[in-house]
């Protein structure tokens, strides 16, 4: 294998460490669910970390991000605090949403992360509207909207992409294609050739990428984001990857052959980048340190989340609405 020239090694090492943080966060969350500490459903993205890291590393803090029910990686990569996220999964006080949302509604507006979403494809219209508001306010920030391959068969995908084109909005769409619509193969459910050609048919430039190739993703995202930021209108990146974990953490995913999963395990984006970095002369011990540091960070987050208090039950009545606030009069 040949090492590509002109690699930005410190940047790639940082992205390698970020991917390990995502992996370690989710492995800790899965372990915590087995212990009964994470009560609701979680949708791990193990094997898909390169998409989160490669895309989000190219966003500024002021840029906005809309994510999916499988959004831990995107949220961490946008800069959210791992402990606050872990507390949210545990439903504890100090969680990103105060324990009101859980895994599927993680949001951190402080870092421009406007929410995971429990409804497939629902984040697409929200993203284009956020972009429209940025324009009205004269901001030069952009919006990135990540969705899965299942979302391209929902109406809001068509409505939202068309909308972004006709209003020429600064949105980067990212289809994080793990091959499954929940637990059924998307290929069996999809006419035509998928996200990129559908985007192109609406006049939106699109690239299809190996979603496990961090270096390629990083470069493609950088280019697409620059084009969007310069006022070129929306773009789409179609990133083909695979989720090694089940649809949810408790899904044994027996609907696919073991060899297939093994093949993808060997194509792990983190190991793949590590291999490239080693060939470029990075000390394997340093790469291993990144892994250990990520695992230690997430073990600590898990312990701290476990020790955190439950939220006050009365907060169930807070942040419902101002007019007709249930704290003033519970009907």
């Amino acid at each position: 294998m040949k090492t590509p020239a002109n690699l930005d090694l410190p940047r790639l090492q940082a992205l390698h460490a970020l991917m390990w943080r995502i992996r370690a966060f989710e492995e800790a969350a899965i372990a915590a669910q087995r212990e009964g500490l994470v009560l609701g459903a979680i949708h791990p993205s193990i094997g898909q970390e390169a998409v989160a890291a490669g895309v989000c590393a190219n966003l500024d803090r002021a840029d906005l991000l809309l994510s999916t029910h499988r959004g831990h990686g995107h949220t961490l990569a946008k800069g959210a605090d791992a402990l606050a996220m872990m507390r949210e999964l545990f439903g504890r006080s100090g969680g990103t949403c105060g324990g009101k949302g859980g895994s599927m509604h993680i949001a951190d507006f402080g870092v421009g992360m406007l929410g995971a979403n429990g409804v497939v494809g629902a984040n697409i219209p929200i993203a284009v509207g956020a972009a429209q508001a940025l324009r009205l306010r004269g901001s030069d920030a952009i919006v990135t909207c990540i969705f899965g391959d299942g979302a391209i068969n929902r109406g809001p995908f068509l409505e939202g992409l068309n909308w972004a084109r006709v209003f020429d909005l600064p949105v980067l769409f990212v289809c994080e294609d793990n091959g499954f619509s929940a637990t059924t193969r998307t290929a069996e459910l999809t006419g035509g050739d998928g996200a990129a050609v559908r985007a192109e048919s609406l006049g939106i430039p699109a690239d299809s990428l190996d979603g496990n190739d961090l270096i390629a993703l990083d470069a493609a995202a950088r280019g697409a984001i620059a084009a969007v930021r310069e006022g070129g209108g929306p773009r789409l990146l179609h990133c083909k990857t695979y989720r090694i974990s089940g649809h949810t953490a408790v899904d044994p995913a027996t609907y696919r052959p073991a060899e297939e999963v093994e093949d993808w395990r060997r194509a792990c984006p983190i190991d793949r980048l590590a291999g490239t970095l080693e060939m470029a002369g990075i000390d394997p011990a340093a790469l291993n340190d990144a892994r250990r540091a990520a695992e230690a960070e997430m073990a600590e987050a898990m312990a701290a989340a476990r020790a955190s208090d439950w939220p006050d039950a009365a907060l169930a009545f807070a942040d419902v609405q101002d007019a007709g606030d249930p704290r003033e009069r519970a009907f």
Partner: protein
Amino acid sequence: MARMSYLDAGRRALTEEMERDPAVWALGEDLGRGGVFGQYRGLQEMFGKDRVADTPISEACILGAAVGAAMTGTRPVVEMRFSDFALCAVDELVNQAAKARFMFGGQSRVPLVVREPIGMWRSSAAQHSQSLEAWYAHVPGLVVLCPATPADALGMLKSAIRCDDPVVLMEHKNLWALEGEVPEGEHLVPLGRAETVRAGRDLTLVTWSAMRQPCLKAAEALARDGIEVEVIDLRSLWPWDRDAVMESVARTGRLLVVHEAVAVAGFGAEIAASVAEALHPQLKTAVRRLGAPRIPIAYAPPMEDEVRVSEAKIIETARAMLAPERAG
């Protein structure tokens, strides 16, 4: 005071709020051509295409985009054309707009207004005639308003735009041409406050939207027979003015709720149940509701009229409630 139509009052409200606050903008189909009923006439010329945006026929995206825009520092006013079409955007309203503030732990507000023209209007049939206000009143997080007069069309839309909650503002299509007195200058109607339109000692009649007028006419007819009906225009379904209704029924001992929507699980049921729970010992007769039968709305006038609550029906029901043999 100036005389103005319900339609022009809504247009004045939006104009005033857009002039006052650059974060306010409108989006929907055909707005550049004035909107389907003319409620937006002239606004695109005044404020430009960015702030009065003509959208594709993509109801889900219209409302979803408004959610994103509302979470990003603007105050969108959404036009849904017919409330029936808003059903294409129920996820965006119910799962997204109504939930975002709560499920993100208060990190965001969703200050948007959804204008939904409701109600029966000249043989518009089953998909252009519905009154679904009770659906939205059922959803925590939403504010639901049903103005019945030009003054309220002005003052409630302005208050809705300034509210930090997602507001569903239901404007009745049959009221567009209704003329009435409208205050000059700034006019804001507080949300959740009913208007007692007519005082009376014998029976409390609670209504809203286009049923306000037949209710008032019925009250006038009953007054000629010495029956004094208190007419309350609820105006706001969520929050609803429980105090005004309870205070009135405690005095009259009789409650009749009248609405155009289907009676089954209509908002009248909520009011009737609340009054029955709170005031049972003071009631002189059973609470009553009048609404549409649970059938879709037909095109042909004789069939369409089957779902309409008539002035005659209101009078008949009120009389029955006051008849000594029925009292109890």
